[in-house]
């Protein structure tokens, strides 16, 4: 546990990884979500998809061993696991949109209680870039978000309605934050787990929408990483 009583990104990624079934086909968003791959529970092996055209890629190669024709969607060099496959972009997004992926895990600027996600653009300035996020959120059987519970300024990221441009409508079903695990059900945030160190009142104060209690709230317990 970190000193300021919230999970590190690695710990959030670890918690999300515990829900991925053995043999699941999984797409991890660029950046922080890529960490999820490191924390698969022993005995479980997911198959990772990268939308530029590889199934079952492995860890990064050693420095100096990179092959720049063998990269992931974040343009980082990867390796292949035995049984890997290459395919073109239309096949890759057929896997996505066609409902063949079990899980997509993405980052977020905002998540609304109705499952709307905003994660591609903060305002109307600068150069917009979307990549595959809008396809992923409407394709995978389960779309989860991993995120700090609030912004760096302390503003809630879990909100009643997104104010940033949307990536997808009603698409997120589970949110793993630095403080809690929540399911989105019937347009509400249902609290499933929270850090023992934070009170319900404090957690609610850091959340921009009502936290619904439905059944027991488990303790969110994550190893030191």
């Amino acid at each position, binding site marked *: 546990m970190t000193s300021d009583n919230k999970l590190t990104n690695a710990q959030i990624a670890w918690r999300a990884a515990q829900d991925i079934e053995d043999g699941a086909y999984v797409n991890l968003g660029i950046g922080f979500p890529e960490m999820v791959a490191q924390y698969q529970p022993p005995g479980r092996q997911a198959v990772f998809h*990268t*939308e*530029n*055209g*590889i199934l079952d890629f492995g860890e990064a190669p050693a420095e100096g061993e990179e*092959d*720049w*024709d*063998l*990269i992931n969607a974040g*343009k980082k060099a990867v390796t292949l696991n035995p049984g890997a496959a*290459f*395919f*073109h*972009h*239309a096949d*890759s*997004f057929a896997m*996505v*949109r066609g409902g063949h992926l079990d899980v997509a895990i993405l980052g977020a600027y905002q998540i609304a209680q109705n499952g*709307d996600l905003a994660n591609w653009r903060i305002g109307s300035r*600068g*150069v*917009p*870039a*979307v*990549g*595959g*996020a*809008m*396809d992923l959120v*409407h*394709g995978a059987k389960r779309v989860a978000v991993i995120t700090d519970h609030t912004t760096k300024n302390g503003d809630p990221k879990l909100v009643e309605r997104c104010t940033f*441009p*949307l*990536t*997808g*409508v009603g698409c997120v079903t589970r949110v793993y934050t630095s403080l809690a695990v929540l399911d989105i059900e019937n347009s509400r945030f249902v609290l499933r787990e929270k850090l023992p160190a934070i009170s319900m009142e404090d957690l609610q104060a850091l959340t921009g929408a009502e936290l619904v209690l439905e059944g027991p709230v488990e303790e969110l317990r994550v190893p030191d990483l």
Partner: protein
Amino acid sequence: MDKTIASLSAAISDIGDGATIMIGGFGGAGAPIELIHALAERRIGDLTIINNNAGNGRIGIAALIDAGLVRKMVCSFPRSSDPRAFTESYLAGDIELELIPQGTLAERIRAGGAGIPAFYTPTAYGTELAEGKPVEEFDGRPYVRERWLKADFALIKAETGDTHGNLTYRKAARNFGPLMCAAAQTTVVQASTIVEPGGIDPEHVITPGIFVDRLVEVTNPQQEEALIRAGATFP
């Protein structure tokens, strides 16, 4: 039948001002650097370029933009490790951007090559990238109508080609290649090796030669990412 052309410049000699050009590649993987640089040397302008990205560093598509040859960029992710060329042109209002979700971009190109003028996708529904596009419900879910995407030319990097135009690709450099080959009026391919017909096992052909018009052999092609890391510039 022999679709081989002796030189890069001859292979693209009929690309003119105002052309719409699909360029293969995702990041540096599959970027046909030699063909792009041959195009840059022709100094034709007002181009519309279709690619997943919008150039990196001072080479390839970024060099076309730096030279002021590109009027419009059609892409999903105009960012890279060094996106100066596009960013500066875009913020100065010198270049148009049509931003398309990556899977929609791929499917629009596929549809263009497959003779399908429009299709419906759940992607981008309810977002600003679907504004103004027709929406229809199928089995209770809303879908956005998207149109095919075609081009005058496609510039593609392959690993091995035969003289009939059958192609294989190298690893994740395949990305948009097979789709773009089919969606362009004229498809120009640079291949690391060109072999006689029969030199590629038919079971291993990824792009059938019917989608390819011209091939140029470029042995030991440059790799965009490696060039970027070396700080290369063009010209």
